């Protein structure tokens, strides 16, 4: 298949043409010859490398009522992602080579986006014994990111061992930083508002204390550390200090922590219940600054689908988490690009190159997060920054509807997504996936 993309602004720069052939970017330049190619007029569109999500809950196996690998990767493709890291808190937990290979293979067969399984750090996410990290790394899934996400690896010794152990195969521990004792029964950010609403508080210090500890542990053993979804000003400051000291610490922030604040909780609408919780406007400002100056390396969605009944209930009984894949780029444009904090090259870095480096999926046969250059895999997304839409949860291809942006007007739209040269999204709509057309 040959595709000629005409007049796209590469990472927001001057318009040029891209020729995609046999899964790679064959040529870049102006006035390319489109003989035999499907021609796409990309005037006014920005071309970005296919986005890479470090933090996706695909729910399969176990909760196929909330999301499946098929529905989740469709949502990913529509959001401009060509690779997602599937979190391990499934049922069964992704803590063995068997489970991660199954998830990886299903992703390959469905073909809308590459699925990179995240392996559990501990058996059953129980925080007691290390899972067989090496077996998962050596499996066909080639796991490099390990996380007990949903839970914190709270035991300092276990965390130290995990950090050390994964050095053998270039892995990284992605920590869900939440001191468990400080957050027993926690429901929302601990603040004046939580006091007024009578909801148990989730104090910032519960996140910051774990990050500070883990930064020191990583320094001590000389390991890479990745911090999931950091949400507070204090966390940004700790990571900034760690980077100033040259420590190999990376961090991600979610789109919702870039935009939403705890005030939304006031009506007890459980769509706004998420872990870590929505924080204050000051924290939002701090994570935006952190993302702009590179303290925070990546945006990761923490896409967390839940069935209606798990949200349409009492706040205490509701599940934590919100959808994110289909809205992430729009939220980043709204909070970072349209505010002048980040240009499109910066977006490419925070949503593709950096997560690709952290997840070690930027090399090998199915390399992601590669530069837009001749000879590189043709993972490309075309974005229309001038578009805008009012978010309608019912329009989502996710199986779930826990969308916190309902009714909000957000800028930007993904016009096309190419996975290794094949358009999985065209004119803002899903196409038949590559595998269904016999393309691999």
């Amino acid at each position, binding site marked *: 298949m040959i595709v000629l993309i005409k007049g796209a602004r590469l990472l927001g720069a001057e318009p040029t043409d891209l020729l995609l052939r046999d899964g790679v970017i064959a040529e870049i330049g102006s006035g390319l010859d489109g003989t035999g190619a499907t021609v796409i007029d990309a005037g006014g569109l920005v071309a970005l490398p296919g986005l890479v999500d470090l933090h996706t809950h695909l729910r399969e196996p176990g909760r196929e009522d909330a999301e499946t690998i098929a529905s989740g990767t469709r949502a990913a493709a529509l959001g401009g992602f060509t690779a997602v890291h599937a979190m391990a808190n499934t049922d069964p937990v992704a803590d063995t080579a068997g489970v991660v290979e199954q998830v990886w293979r299903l992703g390959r067969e469905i073909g809308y986006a590459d699925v990179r399984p995240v392996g559990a750090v501990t058996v059953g996410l129980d925080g007691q014994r290390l899972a067989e990290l090496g077996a998962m790394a050596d499996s066909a899934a080639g796991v490099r990111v390990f996380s007990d996400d949903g839970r914190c690896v709270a035991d300092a010794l276990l965390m130290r061992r995990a950090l050390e152990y994964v050095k053998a195969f270039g892995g990284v521990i992605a920590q869900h930083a939440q001191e468990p004792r400080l957050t027993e029964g926690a429901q929302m950010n601990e603040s004046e508002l939580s*006091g007024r609403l009578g909801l148990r*508080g989730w104090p910032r210090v519960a996140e910051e204390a774990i990050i500070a500890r883990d930064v020191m542990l990583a320094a001590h053993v000389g390991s890479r550390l990745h911090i999931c979804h950091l949400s507070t000003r204090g966390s940004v400051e700790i990571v900034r200090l760690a980077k100033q000291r040259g420590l190999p610490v990376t961090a991600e922030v979610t789109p919702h922590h870039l935009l939403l604040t705890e005030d939304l909780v006031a009506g007890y609408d459980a769509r706004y219940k998420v872990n870590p919780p929505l924080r204050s406007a000051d924290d939002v400002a701090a994570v935006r600054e952190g993302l702009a100056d590179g303290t925070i390396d990546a945006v990761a969605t923490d896409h967390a689908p839940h069935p209606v009944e798990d949200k*349409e209930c009492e*706040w205490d*009984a509701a599940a934590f988490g919100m959808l994110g894949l289909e809205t992430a780029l729009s939220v980043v444009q709204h909070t970072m690009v349209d505010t002048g904090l980040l240009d499109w090259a910066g977006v490419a870095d925070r949503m593709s190159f950096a997560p690709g480096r952290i997840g070690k999926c930027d090399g090998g046969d199915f390399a992601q997060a590669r530069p837009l250059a001749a000879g590189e895999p043709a993972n490309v997304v075309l974005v229309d920054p001038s578009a805008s839409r009012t978010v309608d949860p019912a329009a989502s291809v996710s199986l779930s509807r826990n969308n916190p942006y309902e009714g909000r007007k957000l800028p930007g739209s993904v016009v096309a997504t190419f996975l290794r040269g094949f358009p999985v999204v065209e004119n803002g709509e899903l196409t038949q996936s590559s595998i269904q057309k016999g393309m691999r």
Partner: protein
Amino acid sequence: MIRHLLSSSDLTREQATTILDTAEEMARLTEGRSVKKLPTLRGRTVVNLFFEDSTRTRTSFELAAKRLSADVINFSAKGSSVSKGESLKDTALTLAAMGADAVVVRHSASGAPYRLADSGWIDANVLNAGDGTHEHPTQALLDAFTMRHHLGDLDGRHIVIVGDVLHGRVARSNVSLLATLGARVTVVAPPTLLPLGVEHWPCEVSYDLDAALPGASAVMMLRVQQERMNAAFFPSAREYSRRYGLDTQRFGRLSDDAIVLHPGPMNRGMEITAEVADSERSVIVEQVTNGVYVRMAVLYLMLAGAGDGTTGQEGAA
């Protein structure tokens, strides 16, 4: 005049005063009568939806509704709430189908009455009878009613509230209502039992009970659950009573016309000694009686005149 009563902080001073005045009228109309019933809410249905046991609150609402001649349905959904099973939504749809005009809801989850009121599942008026650690507005109203009865206008009066403010819905509701009514409120508790941001509440905060008592017109002692001890909120029940309990000695420091309140149920010997609880100036039993009048007033103001042909000729308020 009131669509829902979810939080006492939603009440303006005028609304709160109207409720208290109406409650006084209810007391006047029913107290001397042999038949303590007013026909005001005949044909209206009030549902007591209790996801959490509280016989005293449920009975009080039941009595209030019956005295206004409403039909009362007690719907106990205990154990089916936060655990899976019959959901809040299904329950609400059931009650809507039954034609409930008002739903009095008690729930262990903060905000559950808000879900009921805002969801569109049911059209009824919603009355919060205590939700988690959030609010219990009719308790605050009955406390204010009781205080007003003894002290007159609460404007400028000093009220001291002592105990578990962090987990206590009564404290939250009382602080905001009393402040709305112009009283000066001091909450007293160990720092561990005060919520973050309490300094922004419309009250003063103290860790020292002895310092707070002089000049108080009323002292409200809140129930402190002994289990809190295990979560390290305080070292022992004895230490708690020593520092924050109301005993005869502390009671003696109050002015002669000051009154003592407790929303019940009491831990005698913990936050309050038996001598104080049973003393002349303790109005704890009165609070129970007043609870019925206040709840009558709220139900009346919510339901009467809001529908068809329910204007009671008794003309309360």
